[in-house]
């Protein structure tokens, strides 16, 4: 059986269009409070480029290709690991005054006025 992937012309455009739309919609609902973690989170996601780097490095047949492939994997790995580390650090800090209460269901730190007593 053949499981190799071939993406030609219009299929690629369809993928790009749908993925772009998905990204737009997903981010559209993020409250301003999360903009910085989100920027770094999406920065982490494009770290997937490391997989592409692995592909070219493993297929390298000259020293030049090995060197550039090595460079690609190293940078991509940095993008992944660093992006994850900072995003996780930032997000771990968010907590409510009730700590375990879930009154900010829609992600907006709206007035709950619980503390106004």
């Amino acid at each position, binding site marked *: 059986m053949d*499981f190799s992937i071939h993406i030609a012309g219009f299929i690629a455009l369809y993928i790009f269009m749908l993925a772009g739309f998905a990204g737009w919609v997903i*981010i559209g609902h993020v409250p301003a409070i999360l903009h910085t973690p*989100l920027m770094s989170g999406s920065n982490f*996601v494009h770290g*997937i*480029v490391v997989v592409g780097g692995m592909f070219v490095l493993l297929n390298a047949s000259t020293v030049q290709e090995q060197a550039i492939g*090595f460079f690609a994997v190293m940078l991509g790995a940095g*993008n992944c690991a660093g992006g994850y*580390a900072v995003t996780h650090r930032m997000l771990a800090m968010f907590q409510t005054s009730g700590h375990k209460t879930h009154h900010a269901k829609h*992600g907006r730190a709206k007035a709950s006025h619980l503390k106004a007593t």
Partner: protein
Amino acid sequence: MTMTSIAQLIIGVTDLGAAFLFMYGLKRMSSPVTAPSGIFVAGVGMLVAVLASFLYVFDVATAAKPHLMVNVGLGVFALIVGGSIAWWAGKKVAMTAMPQMVAIYNGMGGGAAGAIAAVELFGDKAPGTTQLVVTLLGALIGSISLSGSLIAWAKLEGVLKKPLRIRGQQYFNILFLLGTLAVAGYLIYVLQGASSQLLPTPQLIYVFFGCALIYGILMTLPIGGADMPVVISIYNAATGLAVGLEGFVLANPALMIAGMVVGAAGTLLTLLMAKAMNRSVANILFTNFGGPSKHKPSHIKGSLKPTEAADAGIFMRYAKSVIVVPGYGLAAAQAQQKLYEFVKLLLAAGVSVKFAIHPVAGRMPGQMDVLLAEAGVPYDLIFQLDDINEEFKTTDVALVIGANDVVNPAARTEKGSPIFGMPILNADQAKQVYVVKRGQGKGYAGIVNALFYGDNCNMVYGDAAAVLTTMIEAVRGLGAKAAA
């Protein structure tokens, strides 16, 4: 089934899973409650995809077979070196330096995309015009993102202090970009087998990458430091796009999807940031903001009225409601913890305290939220501009700490001001305003702030941490007296 097809099957399934987990993870990041699990979900996707990428060994090109063991070793080594250095740096970096750090990681992603394209070009592996065009486009965007992000880092880190501008630089930049595109066009022509050559092909590829990298530098240098967050966001989207394009060249849908999701998300985020600053993205990229302004501020009435920190602290203790407007100065003084300590005292005394965050407070949208969260401030005390701006009118005290331009009423009233039209926090409408400031200097935009001269405003000069310590002691002293 052969090993090759088993490997292809596993890679196909894991990449599909990874693409799903990325989108699901980003979706979960849209709420503070689920956000930490969101990054974890995306992280699992990444880990699985990276591990599965080793299965490419069963499916390598014939020419690469003799080098396979070396290549695998190099891959493991590169993953460990790049990953661990970045991980260590990410754990260690101060929260205030977060924007620069994101810029670096983003540049690395762009560089990786550029490097992939370089291998494809040197190896002449890209068949057909479409593939070549896409490879070069990804290479161009990735390289610009790499060098541009490094400049952004240098500016935020303070290595590069002033925006560098030359007369007519915009035209020069456009010409340079056109020149780079011309090189790319010629490269496509040459790589398709044309024999007439000005330069040998490899040298031509070097020239192309050199031009792209230089363009990234030229494009970023004239932009002021205050606009860097938006620029980083643009480069974040650009890297996503570059990754997506290289994903197409490598026939890897996971890269295509992840890259394009980030490209679109980053674009939207950029527009949101620009909107918060009431400027267009083109205006940010091509106008000289943050430079010496020719505009003379209209005559400001009143005077600066300094007051003692202790008095201000006690006044707030007996107020009914206080809104705190924190800015980057607070973070620069590392005074978030002290601020929250003071706020807790006020809350315990029955004062209603809220934090009002301007969309561009800090050096990056949402950075102030993160800095307050780091100090332990619950996010239900934190309010965004639109949610709280009406409340200043009915609030007893607005406490402005380390913020300046985001509370400058000139944005509402003065047509000629560089920040005119920018939405601001209406701190000036509170009954009493206290401004904690290091000295009499101007804000990042270099504009005089009329708020400070208002009749209802008093200045508390000093380092934010020291001022807050005095306030805390003053309020505690009251409690002790009452108890005695």
